[in-house]
């Protein structure tokens, strides 16, 4: 839903008087900046944006954006945002959350929000660690990880957030990374334009407690070989055009691209949920590059807020006072003279 008359504003208008309080070098800065770039290009006026967050380093973001915002409690941002969005469907509501906030304490609200499909944009800052509480493992930390709360290594195997989102019937599932502002911006715009619940996993470096978690996916040398950026209708190509992915049965395989010939390669189809699931499972296989981009997008499912509004519209009573007074009397009332 778009507001009728969008007022113009710039990234600079989004600055607040609050000092940004992330550690120097934190990946959160890049995400904030990308958002500030994207918002002015969208169809809503500045006052119609709302950022709702939970608790965590990432969840501080709303304070640094001069839109409406709520920094709520740990894990509950999605539930709060759902109440807001269904109440005020004309607003553009964004959820800012971390891997602990969204996937640990807030996991239930996340999966239910995904299945219900309200038109929210959820940005999940995944740094594979609890930043704010100073470095415990999170549900995305790799097994065996040594942290403050796992001095001899974790025994919990992590979530695959993309697979979880697909298994929860998410209608828009994407992944991007802090070190690629262009890609981020593209993905945030896509998320915004998706009618329904958009989940964007953002790989974010916590340089204090989990530095370098995604290094091989962000550093110039290794990035081409460890990542693949998918686009709808385009073949799955990576390694600077030298490698591609084919689908053999249900298995993805890396092949060499000879003479730029991409024939037979897997063509990305955002609308194919099975393919999306296979993409999500690249995660489990170190030989496959990590996919970024819109992995799945299904615009056919109506949004929760849309469905609710339709019910409200259908039932709407004009004279509510009259109707209420009638309602009081409707059930076997009697008169005493």
């Amino acid at each position, binding site marked *: 839903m778009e507001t009728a008359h969008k007022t113009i504003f710039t990234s600079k208008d989004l600055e*607040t008087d609050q000092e940004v309080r992330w550690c120097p070098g934190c990946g959160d800065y890049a995400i904030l900046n990308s958002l500030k770039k994207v918002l002015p290009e969208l169809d809503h006026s500045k006052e119609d944006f709302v950022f709702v967050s939970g608790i965590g380093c990432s969840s501080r973001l709303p304070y640094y954006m001069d839109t409406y915002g*709520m920094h709520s409690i740990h894990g509950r941002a999605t539930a709060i945002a759902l109440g807001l969005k269904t109440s005020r469907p004309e607003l553009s509501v964004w959820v800012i959350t971390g891997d602990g906030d969204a996937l640990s304490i807030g996991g239930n609200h996340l999966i239910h929000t995904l299945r219900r499909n309200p038109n929210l944009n959820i940005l999940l800052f995944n740094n594979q660690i609890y930043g704010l509480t100073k470095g415990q493992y999170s549900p995305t930390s790799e097994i065996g990880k040594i942290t403050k709360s796992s001095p001899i290594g974790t025994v919990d195997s992590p979530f695959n957030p993309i697979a979880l989102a697909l298994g929860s019937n998410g209608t828009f599932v994407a992944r991007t990374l802090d070190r690629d502002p262009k890609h981020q911006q593209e993905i945030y715009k896509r998320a915004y334009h998706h009618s329904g619940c958009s989940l964007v996993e953002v790989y974010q470096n916590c340089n204090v407690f989990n530095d370098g978690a995604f290094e091989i996916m962000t550093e110039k040398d290794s990035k081409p070989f460890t990542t693949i950026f998918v686009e709808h209708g385009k073949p799955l190509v990576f390694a600077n055009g030298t490698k591609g992915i084919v689908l053999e049965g249900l298995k993805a395989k890396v092949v060499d691209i000879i003479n730029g010939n991409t024939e037979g390669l897997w063509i990305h189809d955002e609308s194919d949920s099975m393919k999306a699931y296979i993409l999500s499972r690249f995660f489990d296989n170190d030989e496959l590059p990590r996919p970024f981009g819109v992995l799945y997008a299904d615009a056919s499912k109506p949004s929760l807020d849309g469905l609710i509004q339709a019910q409200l519209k259908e039932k709407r009573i004009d004279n*509510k006072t009259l109707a209420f007074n009638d309602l009081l009397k409707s059930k076997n009332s009697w008169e005493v003279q």
Partner: protein
Amino acid sequence: MSETTKREQHVVIKFAGDSGDGVQLTGTQFAETSALFGNDIATFPDFPAEIRAPIGTLPGVSGFQLHIGDNEILTPGDTYDVLVALNAAALKVNLKFLKPNGIIIANNDGFDDKNLRLAKIDENDNPLHNGSLDAYQVFTADITKLTKLAVAEFGLGNKEAERCKNMYVLGLVYWLFDRNLQHSIDFIEKQFSKKELVAKSNIKALQAGYHFGETSEMFGNRFEIAAAVYKKGTYRSINGNQATALGLLGASVKSGIPIFLGTYPITPASDILHELSKHKGFDLISFQAEDEIAGICSAIGASYGGRLGVTTSSGPGIALKTEAIGLATMLELPLVICNIQRGGPSTGLPTKTEQSDLLQALYGRNGECPLVVIAASTPADCYEMSYMAVKIALEHTVPVMFLSDGYLANGAQPWMIKTLDEMPEISSHFIRQANDSKEYQPYARNADLSREHAVPGTPGMEHRIGGLEKENITGNISYDAANHELMVKLRAQKVLNVADTLPLQTFEHGNKDSKALIIGWGSTFGSISTAVKELREEGLDIAHIHLKYINPLPSNLGEMLQNFDKVFVAELNNGQLIRLIRDKFLKDAQGINKIQGQPFQITEIKDIIKHNLQ
């Protein structure tokens, strides 16, 4: 006809049977017909925790207690004049509260060997025949058989035919109390409008029961209970959960702020959800969340957006909401939290009533987190008090806890309808339009310390709020020591200020020079008030104060208590309001407590007071 008519001022009837027997319907119909006739009534349904407890067993007994009278009725009554027992278990469970020489109407077919066994009664010791009921007037009939005979012509299956026996019984009791069948006939026709044969069978059973009363000459006399003298007006019968739903909805209509209900089902609160979700026409959104936390959080999100956030639950669910109540307190947004209390702790006694969540309501949050707490005193009062909950929440920009309980939730009484024009105005503090006159400060305060909330979408007022401590006026995060103390005190004072807008407390009975005082709160109103009235009639000068506003307490309460040496606090818990009274007023108050999942009996209260004053 040889029968005579006995005039009574009030009569207590208990319908009891297996939970599959439909006695709740029998009771409700009898209650409604009596209310329509003009009696005052109070009802008390009491059913097993199981959906369908095993047929014929003691835990499977379902009961519906009904008190009807020709003048004010405040409780469903301590003991029954009439006990309708559809099987042996129903008789066994309920006999202890039947008055001496009371009437028993028993279904012979429910006392066969199998039913006796299920009720854990020796098969050779059928109470209908062993003389054990000699102290009562026992009337028996083969109700099951008679029902089946009566409806045979419509060709229902055996089970379906048998199921009409609740209507047969209803007919029989209608005859006994000389009531008109029309209301129930209308009801049956509507209920089974798509199942003609079922409708016809039930109507036939109803009529057959009535005629059996008339022709069998089984009863020595009929009862007559005159219509009560009511003030002029439109009345209806209402239970607490209906009244709560309507009060919330009415306040939303009056204030022009539509409800967002974010909730999760739980006994005995679910019916508020059921009722409210019927009313989407009032722009009402009802959201059945994944859990209680999402319920309250979605309501907070809605309030933040300029709706009226409401959440409903019972004790275990309220426990889960406490963290979010803290957030709402920090955000200083309106929010109504309804706790329909039940027996605790933990899962406790889900279908039983109790007042044991008061301390949780007052103190059950981390940090200094004062909460407005109010409680309804009768089923119909739920309408006014839930309305007041909304009014306070919107006008003071605070979360408000509205307390009801299982007894109020399911109990019904006639209620003189109060349409919206008779209800107080409700203002609110949402800013929805840009306002250039001055810079918006989210935590600037009005005289009563409420704040103005600019809802998202309002141009030029963009701002951020959250659960971290905030600087006064600006709302920016602040770790400043003095500011924190200031904010804690402001939030406390803001709650105290609510008292300025509330009615002063009055005595229900007696006055400040009475010999002793009994203080109650919430659903015990009927029992305490009746007990005190009777004690006063017996010559004991007892005063009664009934609290509906518990935090803040009415500003004149301290003064009212001053003269009393003897103060009782009566509650359905192990002593909770009493802590507040002792703490605030340093009175050596004494508790009258019952923790049995059941309302007070009038005599229980009277006995304790008499015993203590002698």
